[in-house]
């Protein structure tokens, strides 16, 4: 199974999880994307 990384688009925005292969990463890097940490897990809604 290929490794996965999170990438953020130029100028900020929603990170995307992608396969860490050169075919996918290189065009993204060239287009200005950069690696970012995984987004924090969302907390489940509180039960009443």
């Amino acid at each position, binding site marked *: 199974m290929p*490794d*996965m*990384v999170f*990438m953020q688009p*130029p*100028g900020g925005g929603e990170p995307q999880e992608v396969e*860490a292969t*050169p075919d996918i*990463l*290189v*065009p993204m*890097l*060239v*287009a*200005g994307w*950069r*690696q970012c940490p995984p987004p924090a897990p969302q907390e489940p809604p509180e039960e009443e």
Partner: protein
Amino acid sequence: MANIRELLIGFGKGKQTNITTANILAQIWRLAKLNVELANPRYVTENDAAELGKGHEFATQLFKSHIESGPHRLEKYLSSEFAAWLVAFGLGKVVKSGLGPYTYTCTPLNLPTDGLELPYFSYLEQVRPGANDVRDLMLVGCAIKGWTIEINSGPGRANAKATVEFVHSGKITEPSGITLPAATAENLLNAYSLACTINGVDYVTAKNFVSLTMGWDNAFRDTSDFYPGSGQQDGYQIRGRMEVGDRAPAFSFVARFVDGSAELQKVRDLTTGTATIQLTRDANNSLQVTWQKLGFAVAEVGETDGIVTVAVTGQPMYHETNGLLSAVVVTPVDGICQ
């Protein structure tokens, strides 16, 4: 008296948070090098010789100006560890993946989105560090000006070497306050493992390959680094930034020239294609550099050790989707340029 072979060097495998904040010990590794030059910062002074009002043309006072430091050279046998550091800091953009070994996918900065500054690192030199040290200083805020990878015919480690030139901001910590860790065990990428396809030709399978040189120059803008507010060290101005200029790639190789060799025809036809250069020690240690669109600018037939060869100067070009070049390094070391 101290022997130059006592020289210890260490530098940040991780990047500094900014140009003025030194790497911490946990980010620093110690490696060996080949060249004997020391990384000497040069304190530049000026004087009043040209000023009027003294009655003569001689200097009467010295003034502090600035610190020039670099380019300093690091010459090493090529290893997966050093290759990862070189392309990550030298190109500027890196994605780390994997849980060990780690894969570093690197490309040059995209200037509109990434800016003009490369990641910075600290560089240490020590000779008998401690209370009676001969030399112990840390150069804070260094960036790679350029790098070269050479692959040559012949046995031994020297058939695959890397040279890095780096420039230093001028900020110095002396003594460094750092106790260097044990030397990192490096996994060499010798030339015997070369796989190489250039512009549609697999030169290794054909047993025709002789040598290759590829490199990168970040062409720093130099004087604009000394801007108002850039900072000082001992009253001498230092660089507050190092910005890439018109970056220059380099690619050339020599191959045996045989019946059917098409290098001259490719110059005439302006043929372009990719060039993929790969060195592999094992599954945990490799380097692959891909020049995304390469033409042949010059091809000249000559001789090497009595064999007819062709020397080709490549012209790396920008590919709309994949850029100029990418480098993928697999190595056991975590945290490079992180």
